[in-house]
């Protein structure tokens, strides 16, 4: 059973700040790391591998220093990793990413299950998983947990808003997981050091996958013309010196404006 876990070396959004004067989001020096959701992806894939005596590939598309961020990931039962190097500075679009991942998966070949996160920590588009299923023409189970393989079918629970839907999909299939799908194992530092010996392949989009830069750009016609930062600062409005009744009246006004009293 061959399993591929798709992960992303993503920007740590909690370290990004909006410059109060220019309103621009500072991207310089923002650290990148494997996202929280990517650990869940690896855990789900690792579990599937261990339960079904399979092999686990880690696949990622990113800058060439992505290798450095994979130290602990490799200790999560990964057999081999493939890093496809992004020839551009940033991710151009979800469609170009999906094309690259699809070609890489086809090159790895004979895949049974592809596990992705429902979205990435920084892009937050929720697109790559389903788009990948569409591109590879494979069935898909989104928001999955409790994955099981039964003969050549995949059974999983989909964690939807109002219900838990148990579905059965034929293999090969693409699966996306949410951050709550499992509790990832935490490899120790020593596990990570022992995992250093494992193979990490570096592939080039053009040379290894036959995708030219022009093709990637063609798949990315839409670029943001502007990104304005929202300063999420607490308002620090202090209601002081009033009696309880007046204070509450003022508060209720604010809360109505904020539209947070929906409740029942």
């Amino acid at each position: 059973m061959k399993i591929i876990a798709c992960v992303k070396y993503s920007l740590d959004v909690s370290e990004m700040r909006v410059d109060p004067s220019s309103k621009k989001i500072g991207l310089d020096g923002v650290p990148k790391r494997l996202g929280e959701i990517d650990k869940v992806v690896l855990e789900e894939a690792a579990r599937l591998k261990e339960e079904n005596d399979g092999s686990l590939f880690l696949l990622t598309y990113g800058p060439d220093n992505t290798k450095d961020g994979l130290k602990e990931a490799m200790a999560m039962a990964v057999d081999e990793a493939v890093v496809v190097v992004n020839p551009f500075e940033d991710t151009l679009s979800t469609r170009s990413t999906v094309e690259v991942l699809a070609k890489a998966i086809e090159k790895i070949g004979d895949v049974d299950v592809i596990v992705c996160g429902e979205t990435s920590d920084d892009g937050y588009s929720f697109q790559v998983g389903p788009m990948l299923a569409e591109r590879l023409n494979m069935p898909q189970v989104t928001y999955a947990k409790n994955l099981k393989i039964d003969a050549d079918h995949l059974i999983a629970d989909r964690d939807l808003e109002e219900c838990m839907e148990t579905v059965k999909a034929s293999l090969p299939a693409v699966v996306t997981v949410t951050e709550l799908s499992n509790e990832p194992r935490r490899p120790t530092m020593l596990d990570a050091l022992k995992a250093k010996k494992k193979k990490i392949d570096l592939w080039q989009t053009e040379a290894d996958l036959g995708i030219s830069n022009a093709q990637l750009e063609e798949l990315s016609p839409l670029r943001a013309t502007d990104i304005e930062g929202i300063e999420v600062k607490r308002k620090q409005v202090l209601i002081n010196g009033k009696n309880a009744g007046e204070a509450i009246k003022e508060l209720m006004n604010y809360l109505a404006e904020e539209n947070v009293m929906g409740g029942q």
Partner: protein
Amino acid sequence: MELFGVFFLIGLISFVLLCALRISFWFKGQDIKGIQQKALPIIWNRKGQLFKELFSEALTVKKYRKKDRINGSFKAAFVMAFLAISILYQIKAQFAPQLEGINWFLRIFYAPFVDFLVLANTNVENFTVLDAFYGLASDTFAVIVLSFDLTLLIKVFTRKPGQFKVNWKIIFTTYHYHLFIFSRYLAEASTIMAFDVPTGIAQYWYLGFGLAQVMVYLNIPLEAFHYVLWSINGLALGLMIASIPFSQLWHIVSAPANILRRCLLDPKDGGLPRGRSLTKPFDLMEMIESENFDIEIGANEIEKFDWKQRISLDACMKCGACQDACPAYAAGRDLSPTLMTQALQAKMKTQFLKEFLKRPEDSKELIGNTVTEDTIWSCTTCAACIQACPIDNVHTEYLMDFRRHLIANNQMDKQKVNVITAIADKANPYGLPKIDRAAWAKDLTVPTVADNPESDYLYWVGCASSYDTRNQKIAKSLVKILNKAGVNFSILGKEEPCCGETVRRIGDEARYQEMVMENIEVLNAYKVKKIIVNCPHCYNTIKNEYPQLGGNFEVIHHSTLIQDLIQQNRLELSNEVKQTIAYHDPCYLGRYNGEYEAPREVLTSIPGSKLVELGRTKEKSFCCGGGGGNSWYEIPERESISGIRVTEALEANIDTLSVSCPYCISMLEDSLKVKGVEKKLPVKDIAELVAQSIN
């Protein structure tokens, strides 16, 4: 050879063999050659110190006397008298005319019973002053022994419920020792009666003599039994000696051996009072370079403790000083350092004995059997146990080895995983963004080391004072002080890492070493030489533990710095702070580093202040409960450790409780809030009080 001599000889031989067996337990599985090569030269070099220690500790039990004056003094008297009398008997045996015809070697085995022969064969003419002296010495020895026994007995009766003291079980299992004493004086009496020893001679053996009078008065024909009684005495002595290796009395051998172990600790190892900086269990760099990651980390079996730890276990005499001092125990946590040490001692004895007898036990695992996980995580590493221990055992090191084992085997609960992950990813235990680390300083004049590379000092703010809103006030106060005094300093700003102490105390040694090596590189890149800290944990780690990994910096706690600034008149403390203040000694500044005076001098320099002491103060200070990673996870307890401490503070009639550690502030303030009295007793760092006093 008389029967008593034979018993004694057999006893001695048994003792030697059993002693060798039990000593072998300390070295089982250890690299003996390596130990010989490394340890013996050090011991030889320190022989002067060693003899001094043996004299003061083994003979006069100095530290134990400090802890328990009465029992300790009698014990010292007992030990010294025992040695004296043994030597005297040997000398007597060698020169006693009553033993003529017996070769000198055999005379050794007659020595304890020489009184029998003297009394049986002496007449008034050849009775010298020396003989009289011997008689007095012999029976005075008995008096000392009986007095010591009495103090032990009193301990049994004065034991408070739950308190760890001598109990009936101990008294009973040393029956042969009591048999030896009582049979001896009965034997003396009986010999006096049997051989009609003239009063002029017998009176010097006053106990035996007195007893003889009583026997005569009671018409008990004790004289018929004198040979039997001496034989019983010999048997008792033989049994007593033979039992030493596997009974309560083993400490006779293990305690001096422990002194040997202690003299191996280098007082220069971190410049600490010995045993207080954590030892380095392995070297990560070496592991990486040799690519050998299969080493055992931590301990879950007795055999994984090294020989020094095992000697310490054996030397424990259950005095209970550590338990009395332990804050975790006082809070009702599942940790008693005494019980833990005793349990490990017993386990070592039974497991290795059974292995020797080829009947090994099923389970060697300690965690879950001899100690529980709650026990392991209950420790705050406050070192009160080490401070209190009369034989300088390092109880925390066993707990650390257990923790290292749990971490290495990924057996941590979510809380601990979270805090380690937070420190690993975000360089602070709160998991807050690195970019905000210096946000506390944004409205102040605080240059970063990049802006001010020629600064004299680096102010290492630490995670608590950087991120915790309450503790940020300490950093702000200290900056005010430094600027007022014109100190040329800088901070690392958002590049400041976590010092790593929490990671190490939770037991993730590998991650700790990796972090610290990176930290040292950062500090060296900025050519940092002197570091000011306001957190004793950062202080202890950077000062005493970073050198283990190649980082050597001069670290100054802010209390010392402020004291210097005041003495140099660089600070004008003009505003009065009219408060009665008590200072709570933080564990990592006080017990770990011996700094008690500087903070007090700072406080007394503040005009209007009145400094008083809490009940448990200085080296006996009661932990706030925040150390050893404890502030980051929950542990079952009856009441909180900080709750106990604030109760003590509240009863002390003070206006302000002063500390010099951010953990202490958080823990103590939290407890006051829970009790609803935080307005009644403010908790302030000394920097805050000084800042209040300057303009």
